[in-house]
Structures are given as C-alpha cells and as structure tokens.
C-alpha cells in the first residue's frame, strides 16, 4: 500500500496498513455490544416479570 493516484491526485495511503487491525476489532466489538444489550434486555424483562 503506497501512493495511489486518482485523477492526478496522489493520496497519502502509506500508513493505512498500520490501522487495518481496526477492521478486525470491529466485529468483536459488535458481538460484545450485542451481548451486553441483550443481557440487559433480558434482565429488564426478568425484573418486569417479577413485578
């Protein structure tokens, strides 16, 4: 990944490779977020059922 040219413009993309790990962390965060959300929803439902 070096320099990419679009219509004569040189885009500075040389360092994007260092940030590729973000794409691997995102699905993990989404799953963890989903777990936290559904756990909370389930606990709320349990509380409501008790009430």
């Amino acid at each position, binding site marked *: 990944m070096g320099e990419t040219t679009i219509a004569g413009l040189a885009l500075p993309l040389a360092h994007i490779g*260092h940030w*590729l*790990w973000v*794409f*691997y*962390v*995102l*699905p*993990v965060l*989404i*799953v*963890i977020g989903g*777990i936290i959300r*559904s*756990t909370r929803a*389930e606990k709320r439902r349990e509380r409501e059922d008790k009430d």
Partner: protein
Amino acid sequence: MNLALPFAHALVAKQDLPIPAWLFAWAASIVLVVSFFALSAAWRKPQFEDERWRPSAAWLTAVLRSWPLQVLCGGLAVFLLGVGVYSGIHGTEAPDRNFAITFFFVTVWIGFPFASALLGNVFPIFNPWRAIARVVGGAYGFVARRRPGHLAYPEKLGRWPAAIGLLAFVWLEVIYGSSGGVAVGLEPHAAGVAACVYTVYTLAMMALFGTEVWCSRGEIFSVFFGMFATLAPFGAKEGRIGRRRPLAAATRWVAEVPGSTAVVIASIASTSFDGAEDGAYKSGLEHVGKWFSDAGVGPLATIRITDSIFMIATVLAVAGVYLLGVKGMRSVPGAPAFRELQRGFAHTLIPIALAYLVAHYFSLFVYQEQAQFTYLLSDPLGTSTTDLFGTAEYGIDFSALGSNLIWYVQVAALIVGHVLGLTLAHDRALVYWSDYRRASRSQYWMLAVMVAFTCFGLYLLSVGGA
C-alpha cells in the same frame, strides 16, 4: 538442485486475495453468530458427554498392540531420535539443510498433532523415551526379579510440567533460535544438544514416577499430542481399540487433571506468538527492544528478552480472554463456581488450538515434508557427503500450493475450529444449566471469546511476516 531458503515459519503473505483479509474476519464472525443461534435453537440436550465408544475388530487391537509392532515402531523412533541428535550435533549449521530441525520441529511437532486428531493417540507407540524406559524397566525386572519402584506423582502438579515444558520448547525454537540475525531458525547444534538434555530429563522423570505416569502428566510431547487425540473418532478403552464420537473424549481430558487448561492455553498462545513475531508484533518488538539496547543490553540478549516478554504477554492475553469469558458465564443464575467453570470449558479450546496449528503451519508442513522425505533423508547432515536414497539433489516444489489455496485452508481451519469450540461449549453449558435458555445465555460469553480468537487468528495471518 536444492533451493537453499532460510528456514522460517511459512506464514505466506497474502497479496493477491480477491477480497481484503479483514472481510474474512467479518464473514467468520457472522458464521459464528449464526452457528450460535442455530445451536441455541436446535441443540437442547448434551451430546458429547457420552463417548458412545464401540470396540473395533479384535484383530485390529491384537495387531496394533502386538510386541513386534511395538518393537518395530519404538526401535524406529529411537533410531530417528539418534539420527536427529547426531545430525544436529555433527551436521551443517544451515537449519534448512539439517535433518534435525525439520524432523524435530516440523515432522514431529506438527505432524503428530495432525495425525493424532485424525487417528487417535498414535504417539505412545512411537515415543522413543517410552520405548527406552520400557526396555530398561523390563531389563531391570528381569535382573532384579521385581518391578521397579516409583515415587507417587504429586497429583496437584497435574499437567503443569507439560504446560511449562511446552512453552520452553517453543521458546527454544522461536526465541532462542531467532538470534542468528541472518538465517531464521534454531541452530541444529543447539537442537541436538536440547534433544540430549530432554532425553536425560525425561528418562530421569520416568525412572522417578513411572513411564506411563510421566507420559500422561509431564512428558511434553505425549501430553500435547494426546490432547489433540481426544478430538479423534478412534480411541482405546481398557486396552481395546474402538470407535467413538469425535470430540467426545475431549470433554473429560481437562476436567480430570489440574494444569490441563494451562496446556491448552500455552498451545494457542505459543502458536499465536510464533505467527505474530514477524508480523503483528514486529513494530512493538522493535520499540521495546530499543529500550533495552538503549540501556546497554547486548543485541542478542535484547532480542531474547523482548521476545520472551511478548511471549509471556501473549500467554497472559489468551488466558485473560478465556477467563473473561468464564467470568461472564458466572453471571448467569445457577452457574457453578468459577474454578469449576474454568476447568469445565477449557476443552472447548482444544479444536481452536488445532485450528491455530493448521492455520499457521499447514503450508510450512507441506513444504518442509517434501524436504524431509527427499534431500534431508538422503543427506541428513546436509554436508553433501551422502546420498542414501538418491534424492539428495531434490528440492522443494513451492508451486505445490497456491497462495490462495493456503489462505482458504487457513480460513477454513479457523472457522471450523471455532464453530467446533462453540459447539463443545454449548454442549457443556447444557450439563451445567438444565434450562437450555440459561445455557444459551451463558454461551453469549463464549461466543465473544470465539469471535475474538477467530479475528485475532485471521489478523495474525493477514499481517504474517516471513
């Protein structure tokens, strides 16, 4: 003509993939999430707690346990260990041309886990130290007219000696061996000496605690390969060979013996570290290494200290992710004690440990085995003085595997390994929580663990170095 390539762990760089590697991580995560919901909906009773072992034909057991076969395989193993030690000590110092390195670190270290996961526990019959110990024990019994006495093995130690030994073995290979500067890989001489030292240590421990006890608890290779054998559809029971439900034997492997979780975690962590050393960790290693070199530490010591720190950090990180998952499960009503859960779910990481091995070493195995069975066999010393089988001039055909094929095998291994891990975890949860809804809820956390390990594994592969 031989191709003299530096011996390196072949994490082939993926430059020509049709879609970016990180997209595979997303796809793998989706597969895991879908599998999770499918398991929650359709899998409501434990299926793996019972092995459903059925004996195979009696003649098969008779042949596999026969004395001639044991002597033949044991003798061959001792001979090959001797060849490895001799070629390591007296052969060339080029790691890729010396029989010892490929034999110890590829053929045995990677070959036996693959064979064990497919065929069951095949290593005992090929274990050279067990063969020597049995012969010596038999001779002692013959001369002294009594069986050798042994100390009682401290059961609290469990498989901890094997877990520590596993890390020490990988440390020797990856960290001690990465000090050459030019050629990557352990010097054959060091490997030969290490094999001698390990032989003396193992035989001493076998004499102290008994051959079979040490093999099941402390002998690194027996424990490591035996762990993968629990995934196989074949196994022995009361001396008889039989078929069983694949993966089922794993459900008891960890729970019964302390230190087993440590073996599984050490296995995943050591493979991860090996994969990350030349890729994901590279800049971190250089950064930390600079502190030590600025503090006046020599270059060799700097590499070893920095690598060791990162290796320990990887072990702690893998253990941390797993224990976080266990901690999450504890929050579900009706959960057993933390310790029980920690032991109860560790076997679910065994398919992942195998997946990591396949993903990281599959290509290396295919390439190096070509060398093993051609020029390394004909010229074990690598000094071009022998051509035992007329194959000394052969080389490795690197076109045998396309880079896309390697990548697909790696991705498939990771996904299948993690789905199997998830399945084992769900199955075990149904044992602890009889209400399947609670069992599924407890498995949210294992899903997070599996997705994290999958993405980490794919990330390591995508930025893999040499």
